[in-house]
């Protein structure tokens, strides 16, 4: 028994090393910007860079739009499929798995071909059109995570009884959906939203090929031209991802101690 425990600790230690060392190295590298001393100047430069602020804001706005689109699409669909259309479930689940199978670069390639100037819906002609395309593209990429999260949330509450009770009291479906179902799956939706945020903020492929001033292409540009600032950006990106995941865990734990009923 003790030999296996030693092996387990060893595996854990080596794993921890492999995953923590790059983070430490990145932090250390970022702080090396002034020769001979450790400073946070790289972070300061990055955070006060106008382009950083502009692209980060842009990506945040797009992320919020994506979350809105994703929620509005997924929540009713998951709800109706569970409630009334269980035979559609395999089809819907297959669709939500497609973005995991089809690489993002193929999806955006398809967009560029289908929605360019010579097509019926020339979205790429205008900035706004392209922004819309980008948002829907991100909603597609985030679809598997959003759907899985919401579906799990719906499974945990008895939507059949809730709906019947609401109907008996005279509610129509918008009321049921937005004032009864949605509040009860708050945590699931939030989890999906945070995952979406994490995906959108750092995304490169779609933003780059659609030529939008997003955070991802900005990262790549800085990486090509500067030495120490990219490291600071990597730490910032990691901190954001960590914050998103941490918040998801926090909300999940809150529901465990305070049940919805």
């Amino acid at each position: 028994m003790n030999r296996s425990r030693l092996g387990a600790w060893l595996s854990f230690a080596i794993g921890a090393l492999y995953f923590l060392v790059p983070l430490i190295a990145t932090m250390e590298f970022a702080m090396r910007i002034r020769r001979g001393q450790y400073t946070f100047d790289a972070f300061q430069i990055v955070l006060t860079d106008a382009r950083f602020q502009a692209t980060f804001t842009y990506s945040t706005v797009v992320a919020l739009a994506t979350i809105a689109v994703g929620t509005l699409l997924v929540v009713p669909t998951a709800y109706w499929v569970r409630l009334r259309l269980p035979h559609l479930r395999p089809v819907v689940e297959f669709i939500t798995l497609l973005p995991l199978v089809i690489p993002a670069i193929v999806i955006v390639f398809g967009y560029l071909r289908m929605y360019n100037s010579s097509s019926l819906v020339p979205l790429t002609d205008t900035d706004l059109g392209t922004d819309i395309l980008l948002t829907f593209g991100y909603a597609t990429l985030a679809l598997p995570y959003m759907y899985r999260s919401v579906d799990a949330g719906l499974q945990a509450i008895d939507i059949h009884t809730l709906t019947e009770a609401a109907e008996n009291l005279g509610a129509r479906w918008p009321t049921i959906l937005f004032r009864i179902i949605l509040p009860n799956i708050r945590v699931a939706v939030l989890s999906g939203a945070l995952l979406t945020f994490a995906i959108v903020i750092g995304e490169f492929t779609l933003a780059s090929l659609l030529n939008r001033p997003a955070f991802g292409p900005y990262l790549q540009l800085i990486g090509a031209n500067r030495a120490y600032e990219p490291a600071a950006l990597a730490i910032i990106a990691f901190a954001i991802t960590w914050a998103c995941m941490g918040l998801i865990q926090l909300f999940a734990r809150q529901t465990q101690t305070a049940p919805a009923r």
Partner: protein
Amino acid sequence: MTQADEVVPLPTLTARPRMSMPSWAWLGTAPFFLFALLFLILPTAYLLVGAFQDVEGHFTLENLANLSQPSIVSAYTISLQVSAASALGGAVVGSLLASAVVFGGLPRWIRPTVVTFSGVASNFAGIPLAFAFLATLGRAGLVTTLLITVFDFNIYSAGFNLLSFWGLVITYLYFQIPLMVLILLPALEGLKREWREASEILGASRWQYWSWVAFPIIWPSLLGSTLLLFANAFGAIATAYGLTGSSLNIVPILLYAQIRGDVLHNPNLGYALALGMVVITGLSNLAYMVLRRRSERWMR
């Protein structure tokens, strides 16, 4: 046979007729299907069909034949090798880590820590990951300089280069290993303690338990998740782009260059390239789902 069926309906207070649910339900899901059609299915289908067309729109298999160009074949080969290497590496290390967490008798806080961190690390792929590894194993990276100052060992003079095949594989492992851990943890925890005890009381040794009971139950999960890792690596581009720019010739980067600037001088060839990618990732995912269904059937 739900709870709802047994509920006796209360007398309604108003004369409101019951809304016809089925048509509302279809209407409710319509936006989703429209969205899926417009932004997922049709764009992909457009490309896949285009792979079989020439510039005028006539049916042809020439694009597929042109995939046998040396530069393209080399791109596919390198992509397959990088994906296979990172998938295998991720599978082996991920299995060891997941086993350590589930069977190692470690303190209780290890599991949630590993799960949270794996969730973060598997999402950390992309440009920032490339930067992180440049700062670690790049020419001026922390580990590189530490090895020189402490062990007098310069990995770059020994032939290592982060901006190469193996450098990319090592970088990819950063999100492949956590992905494997996340998939494998529940699978390993599905191995019920009673199976181990039952086999022991029937006289089996630890080795006999693992080879006759545990491994046969778990190998579909192992293989399936390795295939998932493979597909995951094959379609990834941002990390590679951030690390090597467009210098490393893998299929996604080739496709990127083609989309940007038609480097292949043949737009339909780009479609064929995309078709190839989708076929490979599609087959891997299909195999994963088949294997998963098989193992789930036993666990019922």
